[in-house]
């Protein structure tokens, strides 16, 4: 990688890394802005007065603000995100427990969304202004407008209640365990279908739109005309040329979507009782478990920042114009 790109990447990574302490400071300040005693909030509403006092001491809540911040930051750096009184375990542990299931759900949803979104977008672009194109665009418009909690419930109404095709909740049925790997996998997959589809359908709209636009731009661009003039007119060849260019914005969009889809994940996990970080958030809210909530917030924010850095790096590798400048 030539020095120009290396510099550029380094700059991006450094700035993104600076975001992380900024996030922590921001959260910290936000919490302090709230009415009420921060010690009570951090200890949790069900805590005993002794526990509250202990929290006050441990986090130095009677000390000046910057000292509090320093204490908090240093704790975070050692992996101490606090203690969740609802789960009676350290917050980080509780969160990490749920991360794999969320990644399974969100990852599957995103992959399906991208696969189908790009496919439909390409079809719509090739058959521009035809009936197929209008049909796809109309469908996209509706998917873009319908809230995920409505869509998911329609799926439940038809596929769980009306026609008992899929299970409603959880990620695995009772009595099925990893000791039987095949059965376990199939069972989990069966549970995964509806929640992942809900996420996928909502995200798909964005990918269809983007793919269609960037594919059309590519198909009408000069290099396609020149390729046809050289006698390369096979659909396949032209599509390859156009598609390669059209996919670049998709990668960028995928990175952006990572941050945007979190709300959808929270809602989907709630509707389908999927045991992930999203549902954990709601459980934390219901129990007023502030340390847990705080930990989730910081954890997800940092994850999104890291994910964006990764996307940036990936992008610099695939676009030669960035790679070689």
């Amino acid at each position, binding site marked *: 990688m030539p020095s120009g790109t290396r510099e550029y990447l380094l700059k991006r990574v450094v*700035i*993104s890394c600076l*975001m992380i302490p*900024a*996030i922590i400071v*921001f*959260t910290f300040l*936000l*919490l302090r*802005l*709230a*009415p009420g005693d921060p010690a009570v909030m951090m200890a949790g509403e069900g805590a005993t007065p002794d526990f509250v006092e202990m929290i006050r001491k441990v986090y130095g809540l009677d000390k000046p603000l910057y000292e509090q911040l320093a204490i908090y930051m240093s704790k975070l750096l050692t992996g101490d995100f606090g203690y969740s009184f609802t789960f009676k375990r350290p917050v980080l542990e509780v969160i990490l427990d749920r991360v794999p299931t969320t990644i399974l759900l969100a990852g599957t949803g995103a992959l399906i969304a991208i696969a189908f979104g790009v496919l439909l977008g390409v079809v719509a672009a090739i058959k521009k202004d035809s009936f197929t194109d209008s049909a796809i665009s109309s469908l996209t*418009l*509706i998917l*873009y*407008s*319908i*809230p995920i*909690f*409505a869509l998911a*419930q*329609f799926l*439940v*109404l038809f596929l769980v*209640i009306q026609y008992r095709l899929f299970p409603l909740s959880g990620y695995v049925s009772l009595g099925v365990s990893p000791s039987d790997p095949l059965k376990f996998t199939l069972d989990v997959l069966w549970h995964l279908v509806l929640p992942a589809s809900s996420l996928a359908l909502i995200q798909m709209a964005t990918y269809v739109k983007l793919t269609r*636009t960037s594919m*059309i*731009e590519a198909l009408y661009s000069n290099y396609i005309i020149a390729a046809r003039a050289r006698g390369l007119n096979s659909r396949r060849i032209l599509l390859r040329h156009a598609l390669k260019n059209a996919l670049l914005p998709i990668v960028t969009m995928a990175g952006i979507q990572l*941050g*945007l889809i*979190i*709300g959808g994940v*929270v*809602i989907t996990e*709630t*509707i389908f009782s999927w045991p992930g970080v999203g549902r954990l*958030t*709601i459980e934390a*809210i*219901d129990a007023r478990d502030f340390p847990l*909530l705080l930990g*989730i*917030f910081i954890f*997800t*924010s940092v994850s*999104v*920042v890291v994910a*964006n850095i990764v996307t940036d790096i990936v992008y610099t590798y695939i676009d030669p114009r960035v790679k070689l400048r």
Partner: protein
Amino acid sequence: MKTRSFIKGFDLKSKMKTSRPLAISTILLSIILFLAITTGLLTDREPLKTGYAPGLTAPTSEFPMGTDQLGRDVFTWTLYGIRTALVVSVVSTSLTVIIAVLVGLPAGYFGGKLDQVLMRITDFFLSIPRFILIIFAVIIFSPTLANIIMILSVFSWPSLARIVRAEVLSVKEREYVQAAKVIGSNSFDIMFSEVLPNVVPPMLVASALQMSDAILAEAGLSFLGLGDPNTASWGRMLSIARQAIYAGGWWTLLFPSVFITATVLAINLLADGLNDILNPKSVR
């Protein structure tokens, strides 16, 4: 001057004909607005009051959209929900626009340190997951409608401010701005009378999308139980629907879903239509 003629020479009828999304959107929005205004005439029940019926009842002539498990009238709630949605979206978007302009305009126009600082702030807000932040803030500051509206505005202005700033940067170099500078107008005059009117049209599309975003955000919060318990929000009805559909109460799911989708759709079409008018060269 370019800006004045844009507004003066605006022929609504012909614009309608060229953009189908705009036409559909106008029709839909008119219907929705009409329903919002005449809600009081269409029903004399209260949206959140329980006990109009003993329990879950299917749609009848007395209850055109049925009732939920606690006997609340779905029809009334759905109609009042329009008002909630419109209030939330209009007010929070207006606040967002004001903040975005107040921040983006000087940032783009003056540049320098001010611009750097503002860019870092917007970068920050854009890199953190918005929804969790909103949830967090709502919990901290107690879920009243006013709070929710303010929280939505506070976390939405950064992306709009970016757009404003970008537009200002491009408008800044145009002849009429340079001309005004030469004449000796002071900066604030230039900013508001020359630059701002030209920044507004591109911002309209983003603002419209902001509105539909706000509706979905508020509904999402209400669905999760984080909304204002005293307002008739479609989101909350859809959370009630979660239980109701098991007992066969499909109407609690269908009607609010149709309404919220239609409203968001109408606003998105408005954004599309505005885009057609303002950027006629863009790929359709």
